[in-house]
């Protein structure tokens, strides 16, 4: 089967884009991605589009195509919560490999911060809970993740300061990214003293709500920036609701990762860059440990030892992740992929990691660690 390459990518700055609609933001990202890929509109024969909570349109993909003068032969939207971005990239890869499409534009954008009230956003997201058993209790997404965290910390002995360490690290990275939503450096003490949200999670353990958009082109040919192929992909879906999660040590993340790594014929130690979903500090910690980038209960120790530093063995979320670059829904999860691609193709600018990773690992999670999508990116030698 033929290969599929990440040919171009563009992300807007994340943060407040007052007055911009979801489509406005998507157009900005799509324009940037086509320019990055050096493609004209007629070359785009596939469009995959993420949902936007501020624009619950039945046909967001073709609505966008009309406004943006695209006439693809294949298009639809997709929704899989926080795993949507990774799932769209996986599907784009399969469409290209199967010969169905030549160039697939994958995009998502949302004015999640400015387009609705914070309460309305939190309410919308809380509905990933069970409508009878969970949501009526006054639960929210932070509460679901907090409940899960309590169990995980109980079983591993992880401390709140271990989680806090990741908030500090993500902010450190975002501080040098001009597009990041939150850029003021924070200390461990700042995280520990931040407003309680849902124990053990405090405000700085949680990602912000942002506006922004991201678009990428997956293509049959590599682009002008280098040949980065999607060499492996895998998914796992074990449950929808937190109550139905059977084992906090086996959420499906490892199954998805193993499938992707097996397809690429690589192991976790071959990965020279990590883009891992980090809606909360506990999300990032659990994913790193379940997938195997750190032993159980040791992710924070690995972080402290420098493993995940930009100059370390496995640089992690060098854009600042959802925790600090920001989270505008589907595009938030795609920003990890854009950053991995920029780093692999030497376009990291002042953030460029020294190692120019040969292989990168990406992971998205939707719901409450419910849906998992892993991708492996591999650089072909010139």
């Amino acid at each position: 089967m033929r290969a599929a390459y990440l040919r171009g990518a563009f992300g807007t700055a994340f943060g407040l884009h007052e007055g911009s609609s979801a489509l406005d933001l998507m157009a900005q990202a799509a324009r940037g991605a086509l320019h990055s890929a050096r493609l004209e509109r007629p070359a785009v024969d596939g469009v995959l589009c993420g949902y936007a909570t501020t624009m619950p349109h039945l046909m967001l993909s073709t609505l966008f195509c009309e406004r943006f003068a695209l006439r693809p032969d294949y298009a639809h939207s997709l929704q899989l919560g926080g795993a949507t971005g990774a799932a769209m990239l996986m599907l784009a890869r399969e469409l290209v490999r199967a010969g169905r499409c030549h160039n697939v534009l994958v995009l998502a954008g949302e004015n999640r911060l400015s387009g609705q009230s914070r309460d309305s956003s939190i309410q919308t997201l809380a509905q990933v809970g069970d409508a009878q058993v969970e949501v009526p209790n006054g639960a929210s997404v932070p509460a679901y993740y907090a409940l899960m965290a309590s169990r995980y910390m109980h079983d591993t002995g992880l401390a709140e300061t271990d989680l806090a360490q990741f908030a500090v690290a993500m902010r450190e990275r975002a501080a040098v990214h001009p597009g990041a939503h939150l850029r003021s450096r924070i200390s461990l003490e700042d995280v520990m003293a931040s407003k309680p949200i849902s124990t053990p999670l405090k405000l700085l353990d949680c990602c912000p709500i942002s506006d922004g958009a991201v678009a990428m082109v997956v293509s049959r040919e590599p682009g002008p920036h280098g040949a980065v192929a999607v060499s492996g992909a895998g998914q796992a879906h074990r449950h929808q609701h937190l109550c139905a999660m059977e084992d906090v040590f086996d959420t499906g993340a490892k199954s998805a990762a193993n499938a992707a790594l097996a397809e690429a014929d690589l192991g976790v130690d071959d990965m020279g860059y990590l883009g891992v979903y980090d809606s909360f500090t506990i999300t990032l910690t659990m994913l790193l440990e379940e997938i195997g980038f750190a032993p159980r209960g040791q992710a924070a120790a690995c972080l402290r030892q420098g493993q995940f530093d930009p100059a370390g063995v496995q640089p992690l979320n060098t854009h600042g992740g959802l925790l600090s670059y920001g989270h505008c829904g589907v595009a938030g999860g795609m920003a990890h992929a854009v950053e991995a691609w920029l780093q692999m193709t030497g376009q990291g600018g002042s953030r460029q990691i020294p190692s120019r990773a040969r292989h990168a690992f990406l992971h998205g999670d939707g719901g409450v660690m419910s849906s998992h999508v892993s991708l492996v990116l591999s650089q072909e030698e010139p």
Partner: protein
Amino acid sequence: MSVLQSGGYAEGLAARRVRFQRCAACGAAQTLARYVCVSCRHETLEWADACGHGVVNAVTVVSRAPSDLFRALVPYMLVIVTLEEGARVMGHGTPDLAIGQAVTAGFFDHGGQTLLRFGPRSDDPTAT
């Protein structure tokens, strides 16, 4: 009311009962409402009343409520409890609960609906 939920959890709460689904074939307790038994894949599941006792599986104290209705209660304890019969449910809890603790379900009315509130185990499961 959908076929899935009929006679089920919400109706149970309104009657101050904790209900869960049980497989008519193998007897396995199901967490949340299902069409198919998670254990033997049999398709006949029946709603049953739980005894109300269980063990705390996860805890959190919520300070940031998602709506005005719950802002009036902050800070409040939410728990996931594994019922003695084997199903897991979410509910409120008394402030002192910890993972592993034996608890008993109680009920309270808030905003026009009946919700669960677990407290330390007692022998009167219907106490509120």
